[in-house]
């Protein structure tokens, strides 16, 4: 029984980080109808910010989180202006936009790889390797902190979306872009802002990732599929759905890892993606019958 709870807790702890990683992706898809395949690569860029801040100046990754978010949001604004602005105007999904984000992902990976090489890195503040024991159950403090901070940030995002005027505009644009535009919402500004917020969330997630997982530039390929499985299961564009899917899948993955073998735990996400696409392509909370 204690073993069962142990695995459950480890799964939940990872679920928090994954939820934060996926929520930015979901936000961007909701507003811009762009599947941002560059998201995981930008998460790794955020992880490098935390890594170098820790290595050079001894700054704790949690302290560098807001800075990584700001730096990455600037990157996001530049990317939007340079690459995605014309795509966003069409307000309709196109294959080209996915390929465009794919090429951005390659650029980010190549730039990070040539700057920092492909060696595995991990930020190691004291708490990253520590654990809290309750009876014979242990909770790794690094994952616990990361999970809690993730949940805090997601809650903040949810509050902004729910109660601020700006959040209202974002939700209106997500639901119906043309109608929002007719009612006086500046959809271009909303797109720009939500893209910047989405990428800032990637940066924030990156700083947490830097002490939870080891990372290297080429690792984002694995994360693309993992994050996509969350976003697809949750229903593309639904942030609540993404969060629920993140917890669900990471708990399942933790059990698969504990009972069958750790190689197969990442397989859970990929197989889940296939099964969802087969059985319920719109995901748990998606409304559109089919994505076109």
């Amino acid at each position, binding site marked *: 029984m204690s073993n069962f709870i142990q695995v459950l807790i480890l799964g939940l702890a990872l679920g928090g980080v994954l939820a934060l990683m996926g929520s930015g992706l979901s936000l961007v*898809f909701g507003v811009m109808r762009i*599947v941002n*395949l560059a998201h995981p690569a930008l998460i790794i860029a955020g992880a490098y910010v935390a890594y170098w801040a820790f290595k050079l100046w001894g700054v704790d990754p949690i302290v560098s989180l807001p800075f990584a978010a700001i730096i990455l949001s600037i990157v996001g604004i530049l990317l939007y202006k340079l*690459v995605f602005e*014309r795509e966003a105007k069409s307000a309709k*999904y196109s*294959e*080209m936009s*996915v*390929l*465009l984000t*794919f*090429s*951005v*992902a*390659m*650029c*980010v*990976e*190549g*730039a990070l*790889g*040539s700057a920092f*090489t*492909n060696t595995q890195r991990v930020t190691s503040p004291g708490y990253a390797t520590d654990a809290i024991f309750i009876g014979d159950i242990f909770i790794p403090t690094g994952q616990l902190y990361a999970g809690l901070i993730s949940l805090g940030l997601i809650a903040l995002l949810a509050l902004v979306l729910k109660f601020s005027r700006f959040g209202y505009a974002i939700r209106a644009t997500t639901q119906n872009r043309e109608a929002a535009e007719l009612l006086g919402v500046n959809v271009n500004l909303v797109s720009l802002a939500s893209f910047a917020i989405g990428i800032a969330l990637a940066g924030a997630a990156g700083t947490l990732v830097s002490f939870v997982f080891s990372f290297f*530039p080429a690792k984002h*390929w*694995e994360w*693309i*599929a993992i994050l*996509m*499985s969350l976003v*697809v299961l949750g229903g*593309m564009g639904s942030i609540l759905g993404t969060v629920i899917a993140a917890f669900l899948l990471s708990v399942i993955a933790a059990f698969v890892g504990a009972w069958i073998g750790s*190689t*197969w735990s*990442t*397989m859970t996400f*990929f*197989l889940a*993606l*296939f099964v969802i*696409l*087969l059985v319920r*392509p719109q995901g748990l909370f998606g409304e559109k019958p*089919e*994505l*076109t």
Partner: protein
Amino acid sequence: MDSSNVIEARKKHNDNLARGNDKTRATWFPLTLMALLLVLPALQFLGNYNYLLHMVLFTASYAVMASGWNILGGFAGYISLGHNVFFAIGGYFAGMILARYGVSTIILAPVAGLVAGIAGYLIGMITLRVRGPSFIISSLALVMIARILFDNWEFIGGANGVALPANELTVQWAKLPYYYAFVIMAAFAVWVSYRIKHSKFGLGLRAISKDEIKAESAGINTRFYKVLAFAISAFLVGMAGAVWGEYLTYIRPNIFLIILVSVNMVLMCILGGKGTVAGPVVGAIFIVVFNEIFVATLGASEINILATGLIMAVALIFFPLGIVGTLAKHHRLPKILNWD
């Protein structure tokens, strides 16, 4: 009214149109190119041109794969980022038989292609239920699943792979069988693309890429069409994979199942012009030459990834129709490149 007269008149009209097309077509160019490529290895009598042969072979192998990708991604409009899975299936199928029973992969290539094609058919039955971004994502997940399976399947060597026996020819002539295999496969792939483009099947695929719902209501069996397109494109890619393994004398997951392989297929089609017959070949030539120059001058593979990403972004933003497509749109396409 006698309907046979009408049908006959229409047939005659169509024949005339076809003949008119043929007059503007420079059929001699691909044929001459092919003949030149077939006699090119004679250079080996004069000196060592192994590097040149390797480059042509490499380009031809990518021309096969890009043409294969183009059938699904260009004609039917389903962008797959996971076609290297079929490259791996073809490579491993033929490679394992070569390692165990010593049958040359060049003979096995069509069989390996067929195996990849069947795999493509089955996978297509599942993943082609969804469209747009969901399909692209599912194709990425396919690569990840395949990578875990190939890395952990001990029978096929796991992550370390299997060494294959090299052929017994001298260094001067060792590349020759593979060279001919790839050049002939490339010609075959172009011929298949041409035939598909000029068939009812190809017309159906184009209708699917324009508007699938309308295509379906016009009476096209869209599901069968696109799954078949997936299978044919997997067949071509798998065939290339079969010979590629023996050429490298090694099969290993990180030769076949790296994302750069499938990106190259996509990039070649987009740069050359997806949905055209000549596009993938033109794209393959450009990308291979470009990579070669880049690697020779700069070395590091990370910069190569960065450069590939940049070219792709520039091509997508400024020439979404690709070289052949953009030229054709402005009526500037040279006759020798009009293979459609």
